[in-house]
């Protein structure tokens, strides 16, 4: 039994022996933490799916279960705040599993000295977000940490939902020829946050796209049984989600730069800051992989929903280059879109 007792962490963490901010970026460092530390400790078939939610079967009912923590800084940003984000984020993680979100919980970690009026504003917007998404907040917890040991407010939300159809949404269902759809313009949330955090002011205010996607998901599931995969591309952006898709399906992902909707202000901000919109976070976007014969139908269903007016088909699944995301550039070249290594760093010049 002695061999099981090992004080040394076996994980080779790319030479880092401490947690870096990059470990929370949603890119490769995060994936390494999960693969090397969390998965080996808790191995089970539900976790091994590595979805945004676990799907469990309880007495014949398929239930989706998820959890997420919110530490966004600043807590109020153009287009939303940490409370609304905490509700929508968990709703969306359930929705992209094909579930109808029902109940959520909230855990608050508050810093000593945090203003109660700000807390009220956060809670008020959580209430509105619950109403909008049609979920009920049924349980919660509050902890307070000493001043300086937290940053105003951190929120954890967990949620459960039911799956009331027999569509299997899984990388196993993804096939060459499938189309890749997105419900609208990318990069808004990340740039909205950054514009406040770095004290950078843009001439046009960029607002976060935070929104609950569950009704949009219901709309597309009502027109097609051939939805093979869904994700909300949050941290790490569209590129990280598509890399996960390429790797978990072991197929190639091809996207078309001219078809990917990037709003002008996001483009301009990214040009200035040396960032790539494909890696910038979204909070109200849905990527869906759909059988080719249903792609137009699903696109139309998306466009009929207020959250999908600018939906587009941005690419397709290929047999070539399995595990790799390739982009056809606007000028006719091709390039690999890799997963982000750590944090996206602004380039020097």
């Amino acid at each position, binding site marked *: 039994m002695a061999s099981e007792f090992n004080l040394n962490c076996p994980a080779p963490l790319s030479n880092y022996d*401490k947690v870096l901010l990059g470990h929370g970026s949603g890119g490769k460092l995060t994936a390494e933490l999960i693969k090397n530390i969390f998965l080996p400790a808790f191995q089970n078939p539900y976790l091994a799916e590595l979805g945004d939610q676990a799907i469990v079967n309880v007495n014949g009912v398929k239930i989706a279960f998820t959890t997420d923590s919110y530490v966004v800084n600043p807590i109020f940003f153009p287009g939303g705040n940490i409370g609304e984000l905490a509700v929508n984020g968990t709703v969306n993680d359930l929705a992209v599993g094909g579930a109808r979100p029902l109940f959520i919980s909230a855990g608050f970690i508050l810093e000593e000295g945090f203003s109660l009026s700000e807390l009220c504003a956060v809670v008020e917007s959580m209430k509105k977000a619950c109403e909008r998404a049609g979920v009920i907040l049924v349980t919660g917890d509050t902890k307070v940490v000493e001043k300086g040991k937290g940053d105003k407010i951190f929120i954890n939300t967990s949620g459960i939902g039911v799956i009331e159809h027999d569509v299997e949404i899984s990388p196993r269902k993804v096939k060459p020829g499938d189309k890749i759809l997105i419900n609208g313009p990318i990069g808004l949330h990340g740039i909205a946050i950054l514009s406040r955090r770095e004290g950078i002011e843009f001439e046009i205010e960029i607002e976060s796209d935070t929104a609950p996607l569950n009704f949009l998901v219901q709309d597309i599931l009502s027109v097609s049984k051939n939805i093979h995969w869904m994700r909300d591309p949050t941290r790490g952006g569209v590129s990280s989600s598509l890399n996960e898709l390429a790797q978990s399906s072991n197929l190639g992902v091809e996207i078309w730069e001219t078809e990917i909707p990037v709003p002008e202000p996001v483009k301009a901000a990214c040009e200035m800051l040396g960032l790539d919109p494909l890696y910038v976070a979204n909070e109200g976007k849905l990527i869906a992989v759909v059988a080719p014969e249903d792609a137009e139908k699903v696109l139309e269903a998306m466009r009929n929903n207020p959250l999908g007016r600018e939906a587009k088909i941005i690419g397709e699944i290929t047999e070539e280059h399995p595990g790799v995301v390739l982009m056809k550039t606007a*000028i006719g*070249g091709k390039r690999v879109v890799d997963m982000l290594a750590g944090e996206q760093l602004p380039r020097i010049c």
Partner: protein
Amino acid sequence: MRFIDEYRDLKLVQAYVEKIHEITTREWTIMEICGGQTHTIIKYGIDEMLPDKINIVHGPGCPVCVTPLEIIDKAIEIASTPGVIFCSFGDMLRVPGSKKDLFTVKSEGADVRIVYSPLDAVKIAIKNPDKKVVFFAIGFETTAPANAMAVWRAKELGLKNFFVLVSHVRVPPAMITILESPWNMINGFIAAGHVCTVMGYEEYEPIAKKYKVPIVVTGFEPVDILQGIFMLIKQLEEGRYEVENQYTRSVRREGNIPAKQLIFKVFEIADMKWRGIGLIPQSGFKLKKEFEEFDAEKVFSTVADINTEESQICISGYVLQGVKKPSDCPAFGTLCTPLNPLGAPMVSSEGACAAYYNYGRLKT
């Protein structure tokens, strides 16, 4: 985006690609100096569109990549000192020193901050009079005016808590080093538009003449790069070796005179070490004597003893001189990746190795 989309126009790109194919009759090896141009070439797949006869090699123009290991180690030492706020451009944080990087120092509790402008570091110094604020002043001639301005402002304001760790490099001496190298195979240069926006291109004229190499000052968008390559190949095919300016919307022959004046008020030309290449005479800037009080290396005297040797495995020196391509390195994409970089060109997105890895992995 106005003034950008025009330079990413598919029809114009195709027209230039066609014209380049038409005029190319021989094998030519050309080098783009600047990392920003390397980035565009690989990001848009431009190298794939050119005739096989044109061999593009990527020059030493990534400031992050050529900053010597020794300076990184000094930065890490200073950043780890209690009471210091260390400010840097973002992509310097992940450059490995001999033992760790600035991200690790940050995770150990040091106050390391990413700034977008050296003047932001000056503001931080004003707001934190009880701290020593150090700005990592690196880069080519492009960042020199802003870095000089920060020091100038600090002097005007009488700041006693603002310092700069300077590792500034200049393009022309590096070009001469490459041309005089026994392995040199460069027939022509795509010169860096941003460097020339500041410095102009007068100083390139004697280089073109002496070494009989054409030089085209070029911008950074796909159409710029293709037009620059077209102008360069045209000169080569016609047997000319002149300095031409493709980037006329930004560059004048004499450069930006007030910016140049400011640089030489604060800095003077000095010998400088380059990562992977070694010492190049007259290839850098250091603070002038009258600005010595802002020199972090003088204030944090313990760093004077740091003398770090470069890694033996990485071939970045050859890559930076254009003698080898990133994919020639046995460690490329296996031992050395953006997540676990052995050498600096894999760290910055402007680095040749990272550009190859991120955008062109399939070709290897």
